[in-house]
């Protein structure tokens, strides 16, 4: 009601409106100018550099796709595949483990427990980077508390490996999954379950034919979001394993720090472009799915 009132007000108060007009666009200008400079320039540098090849002999540079081709070969390709594999495995595991946790939270009768788990998830989902790496080094690293007390090294345990990284990544991916999937689970009406039960459906049938199809967009959306999050992660892996595991983020960091052959600096930019393309793909899948799943929450 207030909405319609104000709309009528502004329509009749034409002079006021005219005076206000210029403010809108003008106030947006600093923001757009800033992003053009601070985001646009680096983005353009990535694009430009990824396609530029410098000729060491003559010192001239020309545009070509050589860097991109190179970024999809040899060690670079291994790193790219390593990143995709690590992200896919961690995202899938996190989704698989996060779903029952979220379901347990949503159906819990204890409000306090629910709130606590959700708040903790918010905190843990934002907990990446260096402290996470060190927490796990202290726990499961070579001299870690659990490693020492349980004698895990003799049993072949190694934190600084593919599966070690997966376990560490799950620490922030599972809470992220809980947060993304909880609204969708809350949208599952009890009536649907009751209706299914009244028609003689078993819980398995209910999940297969009712709940999972409704959840599918949210689940898939959560999955790609987790994938993107794991794919872009750098600090955790860098602080934990150095560059002993081939990951594209570590490769780029190496290249930026100058640990590559002369004349291949732009390969780092080509790799960055590869990452941007993957991340863009993830967002292109995620955003429509999120919108679609929002339908059920209304």
């Amino acid at each position: 009601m207030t909405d319609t009132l104000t709309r009528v007000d502004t329509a009749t108060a034409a002079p006021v409106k005219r005076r206000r007009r210029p403010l809108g666009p003008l106030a947006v200008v600093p923001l757009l100018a800033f992003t053009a400079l601070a985001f646009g320039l680096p983005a353009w540098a990535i694009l430009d550099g990824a396609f530029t090849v410098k000729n060491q002999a003559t010192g001239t540079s020309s545009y070509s796709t050589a860097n991109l081709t190179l970024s999809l070969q040899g060690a670079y390709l291994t790193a790219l595949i390593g990143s995709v594999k690590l992200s896919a495995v961690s995202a899938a595991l996190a989704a698989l483990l996060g779903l029952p946790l979220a379901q347990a939270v949503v159906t819990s009768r204890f409000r306090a427990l629910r709130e606590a788990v959700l708040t903790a998830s918010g905190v843990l989902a934002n907990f990446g980077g260096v402290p996470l790496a060190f927490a796990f080094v202290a726990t499961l690293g070579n001299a870690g508390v659990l490693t020492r007390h349980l004698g895990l090294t003799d049993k072949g345990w190694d934190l600084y490996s593919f599966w070690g990284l997966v376990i560490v990544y799950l620490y922030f991916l599972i809470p992220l999954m809980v947060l993304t999937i909880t609204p969708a689970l809350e949208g599952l009406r009890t009536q649907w379950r009751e209706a299914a039960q009244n028609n003689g459906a078993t819980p398995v049938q209910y999940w297969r034919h009712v709940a999972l199809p409704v959840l599918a967009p949210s689940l898939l959306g959560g999955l790609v979001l987790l994938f993107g999050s794991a794919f872009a992660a750098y600090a955790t892996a860098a602080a934990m394993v150095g560059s002993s595991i081939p990951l594209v983020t570590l490769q780029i960091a190496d290249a930026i720090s100058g640990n590559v052959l002369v004349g291949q600096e732009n390969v780092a930019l080509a790799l960055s472009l590869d990452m941007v393309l993957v991340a863009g793909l993830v967002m292109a899948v995620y955003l429509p799915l999120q919108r679609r799943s929002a339908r059920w929450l209304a």
Partner: protein
Amino acid sequence: MARLNPWRWGVFGLAGLYFLVPLAASVVFTVDVPGQGLTFDAYSRIFSTNGFGASLLLSLELALATIAVVLLLMVPAMVALRLGAPRLRPVVEVVCSLPLVVPPIAFVAGIGTVLKWGPEHLSRTPLFQTFVAIQNPDFPVILVLAYVVMALPFVYRALDAGLRAVDVRTLVEAARSCGAGWPQALVQAVLPNLRGALLNASFLTLALVLGEFTVAQLLGFQPFAVWIVNVSGSQAQLSVAVSVLSLLVTWALLLALAGVGGRSRTTSRG
């Protein structure tokens, strides 16, 4: 009732185990040093270690500058979008979401390339001085610029959620009818109603800057997160102790945020 079935407790139990053990183990790791028994040495050593104060101070300064810049850029723009320029909304939304598509490591590769243009192409122009100035190790402005870009998506969502709950148009009209000028209407009528959203945005930015490692390390600066990694090589106990401390501080901040803003979903969509 079947609601209290064992699988629920199994799920919570396993989750609790997985999420609490590394934290507990970190604390044990720092106080139970092999050969020395129980000691709080690691924690007391933190404050006397070279670079602790300087790097923490740098991180806090960067965080404050980033929050100031991002709010100064975003608040007027977002309020204006509500009032007079709804057609620009999709533009701003896209611009603020773009940083999500560029992972920090790719972003820093781009920044590094731009910074190299300075010595390569601009050494005879006044722009070169600017390039030198923004890379001053005492206060690297370049990091503030990068962090503002990285914070845009979170700040956009926090402010958008806050503005959705307030009828900005009516507030401004009321203030203007009472004789307030534009700045007064904005500062005295709109901003107080956005307090929760502003706090939310500030805390998210603060957490982002305090924990940021990638950009700072690769551009060669040493705020807190980078310093922790650098001391870890020589002193394992110390670095874990610092991690535990920084964790507690960040968590306290985020929990405070959850308490102040009510548990808002904007926190989660990182």
